């Protein structure tokens, strides 16, 4: 029932001699909503562009719907993919409606009533030239156009960067509607981590060219904990060399530790090492992100 819609196999990509992606391997099953996180310059856009064939990977393969495609020559696949680029790439001299009409013809399946409804919900005027729209309106239009052919696999690169909270909420609800209809896979990158927490069920975090995190969101939150020891409590070597310790720092006189895989066994281990250990604190996704980058 759920099949693999996207496979990345050891993808390398560099520009001007500098490697951006240093061996990314992952699989995406249909129906997942994946949030792509990373600091600026980590390679989120590069990854998306490599997947879509805008850029050729230096090494490794990308497979979409089981077809190995490093450059998207297979036109039939294009019917099943939607992409919202970071720069909206609309034709400035055309109105939204004209652009939609131009693009709609090429797809076997196009849901214009859906677009009309969304245009109303998002409050995007379709009869105004793109050059005259505000940045937010352009971004909303950009999202709309990508959804018209109801693709199975949707990629979004910072789709809500310029949207106000109301627009963002509406966008999330649209995404959720899409997901609820079933069998749609979404991969989107964003800096607004709180949006991700709502909607994503899987998180990819790119750091130093690698996929440092590739885990279900719930699982990630459950197994990542932060522990603050009382002031003066010593940190033993066993703890220091514990492999799941992501980070250890001292704030004032307390030791703060962040573990990536927390379970009862480690709880006991730590309890034995220190006296009266405070409760492990579970972190929001944003905090996890920050801790991973300290």
């Amino acid at each position, binding site marked *: 029932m759920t099949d693999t819609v996207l496979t990345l196999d050891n993808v390398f990509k560099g520009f001007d001699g500098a490697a951006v992606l240093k061996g990314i391997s992952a699989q995406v099953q249909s129906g997942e909503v994946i949030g792509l996180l990373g600091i600026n310059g980590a390679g989120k856009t590069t990854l998306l562009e490599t997947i879509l064939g805008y850029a050729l990977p230096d090494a490794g393969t990308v497979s979409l719907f089981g077809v190995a495609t490093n450059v998207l020559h297979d036109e039939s696949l294009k019917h099943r993919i939607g992409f919202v680029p970071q720069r909206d790439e609309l034709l400035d001299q055309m109105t939204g409606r004209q652009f939609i009409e131009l693009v709609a013809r090429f797809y076997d399946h196009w849901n214009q009533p859906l677009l009309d409804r969304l245009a109303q919900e998002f409050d995007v005027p379709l009869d105004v030239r793109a050059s005259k729209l505000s940045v937010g309106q352009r971004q909303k239009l950009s999202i709309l156009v990508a959804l018209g052919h109801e693709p199975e696999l949707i990629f979004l690169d910072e789709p809500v960067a310029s949207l106000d909270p109301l627009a963002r909420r509406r966008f999330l609800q649209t995404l959720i509607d899409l997901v609820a209809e079933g069998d749609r896979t979404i991969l989107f990158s964003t800096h607004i981590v709180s949006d991700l927490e709502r909607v994503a069920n899987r998180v990819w975090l790119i750091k130093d060219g690698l996929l440092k995190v590739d885990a279900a969101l719930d699982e990630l939150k459950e197994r990542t904990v932060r522990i603050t020891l009382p002031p003066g409590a010593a940190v033993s070597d066993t703890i220091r060399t514990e492999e799941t310790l992501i980070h250890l720092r001292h704030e004032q006189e307390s030791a703060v530790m962040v573990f990536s895989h927390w379970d009862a066994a480690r709880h006991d281990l730590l309890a034995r090492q220190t006296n009266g250990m405070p409760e492990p604190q579970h972190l929001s996704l*944003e905090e996890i992100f920050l801790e991973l980058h300290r």
Partner: protein
Amino acid sequence: MFSLNPNSGIPIYKQLVDQVRRMIAGNQLKAGDELPSVRELAVQHAVNPMTISKAYSLLEAEGLLDRQRGKPMTVAQSTAGTESKAARLKRLAPAIDHLVASAHQLQLSDEDTLCAVRRAMEKNND
């Protein structure tokens, strides 16, 4: 009906599961009550429907909810109020631990703490 906080350290599905359990145990949800559909709840709270679905499935597996074809999830008949005292006390345990730990941090004596608890209970009964 529910209050879900996506930004907390607790996964959303867990929050929902806990809230449903508490509401059933506290009789706010009675047997036969219908819960909102997955899609409805997902859109309302702007969260992934799979999260809601997961929570519902877990609750169904626990026997707290019933899934009937064509109808929304309903609270199962057998669970209403039949949880044993021990089980219910176990549910309260985290809150008690938290209370005790806070009191300890605030350097309050046991008697003071118990007095405060009693006062709160009296106020609640009014």
